[in-house]
């Protein structure tokens, strides 16, 4: 099956600064790929190459089989993009923004239904300039769904949203995935990447330094251990017992029999810890 998104040895530079340095990956139909990396890693540049906003210096960016450097508009009707910066028409209403873009895509939409989906029901007749930051972000998501896209590019989709709204957006992403859309999700949030992504790619200094499922990455780079907090100790003062150590099972048995603990739990590496391990820097 042809992948929905294919990046093949992509390179892009802003003057002397190489922002994307020979990256290759693909995103299959119905898959969510998380792009994780610190600021300046090249995530947004990679997205711009894949959405046809920029032309690569070398390499190929293909979406739905179309070369985005040569035929961006052929893919444009079937992709949805939620940008990091809010680029809505401020003097237009929320509904007006959606209906306008629907016209550009040549589709008919139920704007109110779309607004309800992103928790903006009943607010569609207000001007965007009067929306809060969170409302604008939700409208950005709604706009990216106007044409029921086959491929979704979501750049920091839950930025500025409260936990409830964030969970709603994650629910929408899952629904889109179930519908068969492919999603490229760039985010700082390892929690989000972990919860949503089928696979994650770590970007650092324009290169992909790791690309696998979250579980595989954790197994590969993580440290398996059990953390015990003895009675009376504070959080953070746990004792860590490596699971691979032959003496650990006996030690655990002894602790459980004595009952002199407040908490005991297994511990997995987080994606953030893995990222630090792989790149030597934090997210």
């Amino acid at each position, binding site marked *: 099956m042809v992948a929905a998104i294919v990046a093949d040895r992509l390179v892009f530079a802003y003057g002397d600064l190489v922002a994307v340095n020979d990256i290759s990956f693909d995103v299959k139909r119905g898959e969510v790929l998380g792009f994780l990396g610190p600021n300046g890693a090249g995530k947004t540049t990679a997205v711009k190459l894949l959405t*046809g*906003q920029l032309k690569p210096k070398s390499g190929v960016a293909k979406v739905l089989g179309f070369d985005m450097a040569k035929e961006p508009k052929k893919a*444009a009707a079937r992709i949805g993009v939620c*940008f990091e910066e809010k*680029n809505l*028409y401020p003097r237009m209403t929320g509904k007006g923004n959606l209906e*306008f873009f629907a*016209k*550009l895509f*040549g589709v008919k939409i139920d704007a109110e239904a779309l607004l309800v989906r992103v928790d903006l029901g009943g607010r569609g007749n207000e001007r965007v300039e009067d929306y809060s930051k969170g409302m604008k972000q939700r409208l950005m998501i709604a706009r990216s769904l106007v044409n029921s896209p086959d491929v979704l590019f979501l750049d920091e989709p839950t930025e500025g949203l409260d936990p409830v709204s964030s969970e709603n957006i994650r629910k929408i992403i899952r629904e889109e995935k179930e519908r068969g859309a492919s999603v490229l999700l760039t985010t700082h949030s390892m929690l989000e990447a972990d919860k949503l992504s089928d696979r994650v790619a770590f970007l650092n200094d324009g290169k992909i330094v790791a690309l696998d499922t979250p579980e595989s990455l954790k197994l590969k780079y993580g440290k398996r251990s059990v953390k015990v907090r003895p009675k009376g100790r504070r959080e953070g003062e746990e004792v860590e017992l490596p699971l691979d150590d032959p003496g650990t099972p006996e030690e655990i048995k002894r602790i459980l029999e004595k009952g002199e603990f407040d908490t005991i739990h297994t511990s997995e590496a987080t994606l953030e810890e893995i990222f630090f391990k792989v790149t030597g820097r934090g997210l």
Partner: protein
Amino acid sequence: MRLQAVAAIMAKDVKLGSRNTIFVFAVLSPFVYTFLMSLIFGGLAKDQPKVGFLDMDVSRLVPLAKEFEGWVVRMYSDEKALLNAVESGTMDGGVKLVYGFDESLAKGQSPELELKFSGRSYASHRLAIKNTLSKLVREMAGQEVPIEFNNTVLGDEMALSMKDRITPFIFLAVIMVSGYFLTSLGIVEERETRTVTALSVSPTTVTEFITAKALLGYLMAVIATLVTFVLNGVTSPAYLALIMPFMLLGGAFAVFLGVILGVSFSSSTELYGTAKGTNILLFAPALVILFPGIPQWIGKLFPTYYIINPILKVSLLGGKWSDVQGDLVILVMITAALGVTALVIANRNKTKL
């Protein structure tokens, strides 16, 4: 190019127009400029004497007075209003025709003719008013003019009043607000708000985007110019037909200029500052026409001269096709060159958009 996308963008801009100050100003510009320029420059030449008439009867003098083109006549229905008008200087003079004036005149009874002059009126206007009234009553009394006139007119220069000289300024201002400023601002604003980025990942192409902005600016420029013609008394179909090509080309010129600036600047502040600077170049010919003391050939160095000069010649001086065809050829060439330049620059800046 998808016309649907172009239409959608234009419709969006028109809908948002009422919330956009510049758009509203562009719509109102024919009225604003006509009013303002008449106000500012109109006082420079109190060209014609203004006379108010109060006719207590139905005198033949009134229609004769209205026919005479050397003054401006206004009718008043009561003496107080007439006196106020004369005192304030609205009217240079006021004439009260008593009941039975015509009868007395016909009987040779030398009726009284009340004539009040405004203290603010020019001496020459007072003289002209009195002489004209004398002429008209003599005509009513059957006195034949005892001389014949043989008129000679010297020179080729245009007999233009100051108000006439302002008119090209008004046309140019109206074309430029809609065609030039509105078009460029329409592009720049979308770059500022980054909505053009959102458009770029939709099926809409850069060509469709710029076409929509340019087309809207063009339509508004053409409509605004037509309205300006009407407001300034240029309504003869023959004249309008003759100046139509210049109006259409002038609008295109302005829009091409607008596109060039719109794709070259990314902030409205920069655009505004540059527009203010280029105004001097665009309006230079209008200033040359406004002040006949400046050698008129200087105006010909500026492209906008070939928009306003033909309009002036035809609409105000009754010029014919032969008087303006040369200007049309030059304007076509200038507009075509500007159009090509706009295309090249827009293409070059495609990725920036």
